[in-house]
């Protein structure tokens, strides 16, 4: 009986000489190819009989498995070596780089979106009105008659068109949106109205165009304590602080009675303003209970309904929150400023995520 020892020795000898994939291939053909040694031996099995055939077959199959194993492991080994070699030659200089630029959202837009997010969560919808307004909506309906001294405090821009014999104006505040909204909708009303406003004033601290956000709540019970509650939530959320010293003090607006101005406490640490803490006061907004005359002007019964309104400057909010020192830079279109103070477009203000 053949013991195939010679064959085994030959396989061992051949398998020590592998240098590349080709030599493995030759090895495979030599033993397992159609005319390979093992294949030929297999063919010969047919001529054997009985036990001898069985024993030879067993032996040959074992040897075949060994060959396959050798091929697999040697291929793997050589591939690894080759990859290693390739990797060693494939280095890139990772200190080189290309750059990608991103666009920015203007701080005014960012702050308006933050304000909408906070008030939206409190169920205030966003109302709008045109930037050119009628004298009636901007003043008269807001209890500011033609010769009211408060009109002089608004340096009004006039345009050449008229409504009901009065020249139209560039709205001096967002309050006319109150009038438009109340004429359209019956109470209960909860709205904010952010937008552009205009006053004929241009110096270090005044810009002829600026932004305000108006708030209005009309129902059967909203009172001064709700106004206080509302502004407290807003200011705490907006300035992202749990501490908030807030001071209401009497003021006057023709369209609210009682009227108040709201100050918030701050301290200065170096160049930084810390909002909320401290004993120094910053004026932040004006507010009050809607004057009964205003409600009557929009056909809402002032005996049944009441509510509050407030208005604040978006630029002021932005300056305080983001440490922007000069009002006029907002509209200067200095791209260095925009890139510095602007916000990522992916940064969408959220109540559950980040506000800013």
């Amino acid at each position, binding site marked *: 009986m053949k013991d195939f020892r010679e064959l085994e020795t030959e396989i061992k000898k051949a398998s020590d000489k592998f240098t590349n994939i080709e030599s493995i291939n030759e090895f495979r053909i030599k033993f397992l190819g159609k005319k390979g040694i093992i294949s030929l031996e297999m063919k010969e099995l047919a001529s054997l009989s009985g036990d001898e055939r069985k024993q030879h077959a067993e032996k040959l199959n074992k040897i075949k498995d060994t060959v396959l194993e050798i091929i697999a492991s040697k291929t793997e080994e050589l591939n690894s070596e080759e990859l290693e070699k390739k990797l060693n030659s494939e280095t890139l200089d990772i200190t080189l780089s290309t750059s990608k630029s991103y666009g920015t959202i203007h701080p005014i837009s960012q702050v308006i979106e933050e304000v909408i997010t906070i008030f939206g969560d409190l169920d*205030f919808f966003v109302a709008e009105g045109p930037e050119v307004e009628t004298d009636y909506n901007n003043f008269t309906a807001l209890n500011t008659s033609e010769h009211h001294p408060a009109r002089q405090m608004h340096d009004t821009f006039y345009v050449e068109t008229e409504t009901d014999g009065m020249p139209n104006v560039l709205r001096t505040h967002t309050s006319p949106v109150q009038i438009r909204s109340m004429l359209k909708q019956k109470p209960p009303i909860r709205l904010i109205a952010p937008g552009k406003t205009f006053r*004929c004033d241009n110096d270090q601290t005044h810009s002829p165009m600026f932004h305000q956000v108006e708030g209005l709540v009309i129902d059967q019970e909203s*009172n001064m304590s709700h106004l206080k509650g509302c502004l407290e939530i807003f200011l705490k959320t907006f300035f992202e602080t749990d501490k908030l010293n807030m001071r209401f*003090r*009497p003021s*006057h607006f023709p369209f609210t009675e009682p009227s108040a101005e709201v100050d918030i406490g701050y301290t200065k640490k170096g160049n930084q303003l810390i909002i909320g803490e401290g004993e120094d006061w910053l004026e932040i907004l004006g507010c009050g*209970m809607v004057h009964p005359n205003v409600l009557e002007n929009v056909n809402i019964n002032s005996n049944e309904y009441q509510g509050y309104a407030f208005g604040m400057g978006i630029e002021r909010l932005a300056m305080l929150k983001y440490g922007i020192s000069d009002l006029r830079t907002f509209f200067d279109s*200095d791209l260095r400023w925009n890139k510095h103070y602007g916000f990522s477009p992916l940064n969408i203000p959220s109540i559950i995520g980040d506000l800013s």
Partner: protein
Amino acid sequence: MRFSYSWLTEHLKTNAHFEEIEKKLTSIGLEVEDIQDTGKAYQDFIVGQVLEEKKHPNADKLKLCKVDIGKEKVDVVCGAPNVEKGMKVVYAPVGSTIPVNQMKIKAAKIRGVESYGMMCSEYELGISNEHDGIIRLEEKETIGRSFSEIYGLNDIVIEIGITPNRQDCLGVKGIARDLASAGMGELLERKISREKGSFKSPIKIEIQDNKICSAFAGRYFRNVKNTESPEWLKNKLKSIGLRPISALVDITNFVMYDENRPLHVYDADKIDGKIIVRSANDGESFLALDEKDYHLKNGMCVIADEKKVLGLGGIMGGESTGCSFETKNVLLESALFDEINTAKTGRNLSILSDARYRFERGIDPNSTLKGIDLATQLILEICGGECSEVELAGYIKENKNEVSTSSSYISRRLGFEVSDKELISIVSSLGIETSQTGDVIKCLIPSWRQDIHGEADISEEVIRIKGYENIPTSNIRLKSKINKNILNYAQKKLMKARHFIASIEYDELVTFSFTDSKNCEVFGDINKLKIVNPISEDLDILRPNLLPNLLQAIKKNKNRNFDSFSIFEIGSQYRSTSPEDQLNVACGIKSGIKTKKSWKNIQTEFDIYDVKQDLTSLIDYLMPGNKKISVSNDCPSWYHPGRSGSIKINNSGIAGYFGELHPRVASQFKIKNKINIFELYLDELPNTEKKTTNKPVLNLSDFQIVTRDFAFVIDKKVKSEEVVTSAFKVDKELIRNVEIFDLFEDDSLGKDKKSIAIKVTLQSNEKTLAENDISEISSKIIESVEKSTSGTVRS
């Protein structure tokens, strides 16, 4: 409104600390804007006397002085031209701070000579603009005395902001009254003797129009001597920033600031006949005390005599009857002018005066005669002479408002319980008389409070005096929502557009809604956009388009060495200055370098295909789902006619444009770069608000995808898009995509020809396409494209 603490205490008996009063003022609505402790600022300055004065050895204009300051004698180098031996001066010792420039005085050598301290001018002390020489004090002043005592500066000056409703606090007495109401002390009544007058006024008064002036009280004084005011009066006026003029004028100013009662004095010898209060005649003019000539119009209230206009009632007196130190006989006026008429006249003539400011806010009618009495007492005391009886024309109306309210109304408005008792106690402290019937409390408003008309006003008085800090805080979250949507479709669209555009590299700008009418003819009808009173010449219209300001921005930033621009604005532009002619537009510009030359890239510049891509992807983002976007050549005139396109969506109106800025417009704006623009008219986008949250059904095919390439030679004039659409329409089911992958232009193709190569992607939902299926559809594609483009396939 400025007043000094010592003036306040003439009306208010108080034990309160100044700091308490300061806090209370703000808390009752009289906001403290500024406080100057002048006593502190001037505490170091004392009276000195120049003992010797000789020339400085090294400087012609300087003098060496020896100054006696009481405890010692010091050497001072002085440059003032008026310094002389024996003169009493204001001496600032070493270590003191000069108010005008906050300079600290040090011992120093001036041109080689030691100098200790300084002698001061009024300018240096911040008292006036007088800087020609140092202050010459009166001979009698004691050496070493505090300067602030002499000038009445040993005081605290308080400046408060008065809101337009609080006309009652435009006099020191009114402020004291409000503080007394708020528990800060007791209101003191000034003792005023009431002179009856010893003769009848020779000057009669006639009111011709009682609508513009309801009452006019006059008193004649004879043989007065108008002098400089006494120190106390001068100092009082100086302390609040007024310039003393002469006793008669100073007295009227004092009464105005003390009692909130504007008065006027006329030199009676310059009045011809009687006083007539009437409406001005058109074309009349008069020279006012501010030395300006005013042209009057019918309706304005004038005080006239039988020949001429003497003054504008309630606004300003005239030069012709002004009082001087020579004035012997005087007519004193205390009148009630109509608020609205005063406001109108003042505004029309652009005159701001203390009198106008008070009359247009409303004057307490009861002050008319009180003012005469106080002024009379002071005139007789300071200027001597005799006074006539008071001549009163017209009628002093009572003017007491009546308001009914209840504690339940006040409580409901303020958000906490206010009892009848508390309500009555607070309003009574303000001088409001009350009477109660059941729940109704009737309030009789005193004549000095012209701002209280209704119940809401009473609620403000209550919380003002009680203190705003006592308002509780209530929760405002509701059990059920009242608004279905926080933002509407249009608002969401705007916000989405902003974030999308910024995400594709544009920086958002916010520019003025105004712009310069020059260079803007191309963008709209500038005659319809004019602002009547622009802030400046170059911001004289509402912007017809967002571009002009963005172009200015590019120009500015180019000067700051930027060479790549991606900027946008979302905002309104205007068709006219009618409220409804405002449009929401998104406008973006890409210009200059797109990719910088680097180790990896060659330099490329932005072109119109960048902004076209941005615009269409923006539209895709705003209107997801199927839509037909078509492009045509009809762009407005600010675009390069051959390099721009307008965009229509689903064949509705034009929704936007993209293209290169017309070179003519670019040169008007002095811009040399190619400016690539997109504009999207956000209001014009068809509403595609989601009606269902479901996405469209998805049909996926697992059969093999086949691609075939075709190239066609067509006329340059034919739009490439035509090749794509004519290939697409051959089989809408099998053809999944058609893409242009090559554009080739060369004379070898023939003149005015170009070659367009497309890659067509085919896939069936039912089977793997066989070669004959593919060749069939290929020949149909060739046929369709050749037909609609009049081109030929390249083989």
